[in-house]
């Protein structure tokens, strides 16, 4: 060996061993069968966690799971709050997701107001989306007294009846069309026996131009045809036997919502109360219903004072959430409950009333939330979000994707297969065409692959399917540099140069073209890395590092090997 070459071999050796060392956790993890993994997790949970942390991560397209992109709605926040709203939301989401028990969830901020959440192995999409997407703003509010509520209802009814009265399309049908009335009764039910309105657009004169008051009463326009002319709102509400508020049949819910959204109705509602719906539908017999309450707007206490929340069952085997409060919270809560014994306390979550149980005694620092018609899973999920805290602003899901696990493992298999076959074909081509020199080039290519994986392990990069494509592509392109060099060496040999000079000339002449060509690919890889997300980033990473490392292996490493054999008379190339 020529003098002074030792350090080159040493450097290559260090790089090789280093790569292997960083890759070791990954190799160890991946060759463990599922049983081995379980056993390891049981006996050494801390070590297991460490191993997973150190090993290379697999992207969602290889593992299977779901990916959700949330957008934080900062419109209602003031500028100070808005600044770190997304950060805070991210932390709260992290806490919630941790509870879910996902291995290595990914939660990242994207852009100005988006958060990406990746949960590997999750199949219950609904539950995950619910857990992540709820704002979880908890409030304890008092309800309006039944007397006042009834008064308001009557006022609304009277206003709506006036509107209905002006509506000339709502006319009593002539009594000689007896069958018509019967049909109507059947369709709309005849509770009061009075005629229901029916749009007879063909014969009725234009109601808007007919009734000037109606036109200016753009506060709501005509009542929907299905709404009765007498007691328009009240007739859709039934008193609730088992508590405050009313029960509305689910079919009627859209109608009630339309009525409550009318401007003329909204004007009647006092400023300190608002109508609030129950969290989820309940079944009265076989009829699906929803609850409606008239609650005070004022939040007497919020979920900020919660220190803990746990799901459980009450004495009726109904799922509940037990919660604990801070000292301040306990004081406030004690005052609140003490002053309102016998009255209902609404537990409002994100503007919907979970339940409104009667305050039976003064409660200080522990309480329970009864779920309105929920399951134990609902209680558990509620406890999770309460513990993690409310999101500073509402979030909406703007993108969601789910990769089935079979697709994931399929992709891995194919990726590995393609890498092996692709690599093998390149090896064969180089061996056949360039013989022993081809072998050297192949050696460089394999080191290229090894170093690339090592760098990815160091960077904790995530391996995705396009990332595997990038690796395969790198292998194919890695020999390009060597081909450039070898063709040049062949030319020099043909021109009559000695082996030593041919090798020198080949490397020096080809170097310029090699560097140029690699830089252009590096630029595109960099651009893709900066602006790509997820899988594309994975591709950009492997391509970028693969090409960069190639500069080292194709030139430096192979040259070092050649230098060993410089003195030979003939070159197998």
């Amino acid at each position, binding site marked *: 060996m020529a003098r002074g070459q030792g350090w080159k071999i040493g450097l290559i050796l260090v790089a090789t061993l280093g790569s292997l060392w960083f890759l070791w956790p990954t190799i160890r993890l991946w060759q463990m069968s599922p049983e081995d993994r379980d056993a390891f997790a049981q006996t050494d949970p801390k070590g297991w966690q460490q191993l997973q942390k150190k090993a290379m991560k697999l992207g969602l397209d290889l593992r299977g799971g779901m990916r959700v992109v949330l957008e934080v709605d900062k419109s209602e926040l003031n500028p100070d709050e808005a600044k770190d709203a997304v950060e805070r939301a991210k932390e709260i989401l992290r806490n919630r997701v941790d509870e879910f028990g996902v291995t290595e969830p990914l939660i990242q901020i994207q852009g100005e107001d988006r958060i990406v959440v990746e949960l590997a192995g999750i199949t219950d999409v609904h539950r995950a989306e619910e857990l992540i997407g709820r704002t979880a703003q908890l409030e304890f509010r008092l309800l309006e007294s039944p007397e006042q509520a009834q008064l308001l209802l009557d006022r609304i009814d009277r206003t709506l009846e006036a509107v209905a009265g002006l509506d000339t399309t709502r006319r009593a049908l002539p009594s000689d069309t007896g069958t018509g009335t019967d049909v109507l009764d059947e369709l709309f039910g005849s509770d009061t026996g009075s005629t229901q309105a029916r749009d007879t657009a063909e014969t009725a004169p234009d109601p808007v131009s007919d009734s000037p008051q109606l036109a200016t009463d753009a506060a709501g326009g005509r009542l929907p045809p299905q709404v009765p002319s007498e007691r328009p709102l009240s007739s859709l509400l039934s008193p609730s036997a088992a508590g405050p508020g009313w029960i509305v049949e689910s079919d009627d819910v859209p109608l009630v919502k339309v009525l409550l959204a009318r401007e003329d109705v909204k004007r009647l509602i006092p400023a300190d109360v608002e109508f609030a719906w129950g969290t989820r539908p309940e079944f009265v017999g076989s009829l699906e219903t929803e609850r409606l309450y008239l609650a005070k707007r004022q939040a007497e206490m919020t979920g900020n004072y919660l220190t803990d929340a746990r799901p459980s069952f009450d004495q009726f085997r109904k799922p509940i959430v037990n919660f604990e409060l801070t000292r301040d919270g306990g004081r406030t809560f004690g005052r609140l409950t003490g002053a309102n014994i016998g009255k209902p306390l609404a537990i409002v979550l994100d503007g919907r009333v979970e339940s409104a149980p009667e305050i039976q005694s003064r409660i200080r620092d522990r309480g329970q939330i009864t779920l309105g018609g929920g399951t134990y899973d609902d209680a558990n999920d509620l406890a999770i979000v309460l513990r993690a805290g409310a999101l500073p602003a509402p979030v909406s899901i703007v993108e969601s994707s789910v990769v089935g696990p079979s697709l994931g493992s399929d992709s891995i298999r194919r990726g590995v297969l393609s890498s092996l076959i692709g690599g093998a074909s390149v090896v064969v081509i180089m061996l056949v065409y360039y013989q022993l020199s081809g072998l050297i080039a192949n050696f460089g290519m394999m080191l290229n692959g090894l170093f690339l994986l090592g760098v990815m392990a160091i960077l904790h990069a995530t391996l995705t399917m*396009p990332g595997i494509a990038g690796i395969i592509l790198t292998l194919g392109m890695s020999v390009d540099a060597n081909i450039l060099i070898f063709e040049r060496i062949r030319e020099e040999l043909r021109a009559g140069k000695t082996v030593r000079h041919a090798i020198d000339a080949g490397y020096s002449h080809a170097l310029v073209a090699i560097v140029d060509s690699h830089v252009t690919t590096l630029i595109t890889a960099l651009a893709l890395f900066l602006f790509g997300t997820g899988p594309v980033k994975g*591709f950009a990473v492997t391509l970028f590092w693969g090409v960069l490392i190639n500069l080292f292996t194709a030139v430096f490493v192979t040259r070092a090997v050649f230098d060993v054999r410089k003195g030979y008379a003939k070159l197998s190339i």
Partner: protein
Amino acid sequence: MSLRIVGDTNIDFLGKRRAAYVGAILVVLLGLVAVGILMTGGGNLSIQFVGGSQVEGHFAQAVDISEIREALSSAGLGDAEIVHLQGRRQEHSFLIRFKAEQMETTQRAQHVLAALAQFFPDNVFTREYVHDVGPAVGATLKQDTFKAIAISLIGILIYVAIRFDLRFGLTATLATFHDVMAVMAFTYLIGMQIDILVVSAILTVAGYSLTDKVVVYDRIRENLRKFQRKSDFLPGVNRSINEVLSRTIMTGMATLSVLVVMLFFAGPVLFDFSLVLLTGILVGTYSSCFVAAPIYVDWENRRPKRFKA
């Protein structure tokens, strides 16, 4: 004696350049048309860019597309694009797709699954891949992709301008542009769905194509130093191309073999990606010999800079 796939050739690359120019212009025009269509909202853009929903999966037993459409119609989703996926590992694989223009809200994928479960209670549909994209997210991705493309192009242009003189740089870039347009025309002709992976492949083609031109130009530049007379110019360039021919072919073969392997073995996820790269590299290799150098030669002949007559 070493194996030589291409001996000392003396192909007259430049002689055929008229035909090459005609072909190049046609290809570029078609490519521009394809790009134009994509920009104005037509073409086959994936839901990643446009917004929408996509469900992929397979049934346990055979199903007719019309039955699926019936099932979806009953849930008000009859507008979907339904594709029977051939050649997948699972038989009876289907793709169901909505673009965002057809519906306003997101998360239709769950509705689709529910409708299928309801309509085919005995024929289990296993979902393999489900994706909902809100239109705002699609718009963001479009923007980001443009930025990536723009940065790539600018970066390459700057680098080429630094390393080569203006003429080399410009002609190389033109030839690369021709290659990218050829690939765009190809994807348009076969109706390939353009998603972010395909865009990545196209960008990689651009990088690779330029690499190829650079190698040829390096040799031309090196040889140019040797001859001074104008009459040597054309044959000199021709010879340069011939000299690098074996490198060009060998590199092409190595990369192509890897891509062909990916095409057959890497599965549906990477199929379009590999196809784009394959086409791009074939075109790139062709244009390095038949398009790039000729443009330079003709430009030099019209406006001689190197050789005063």
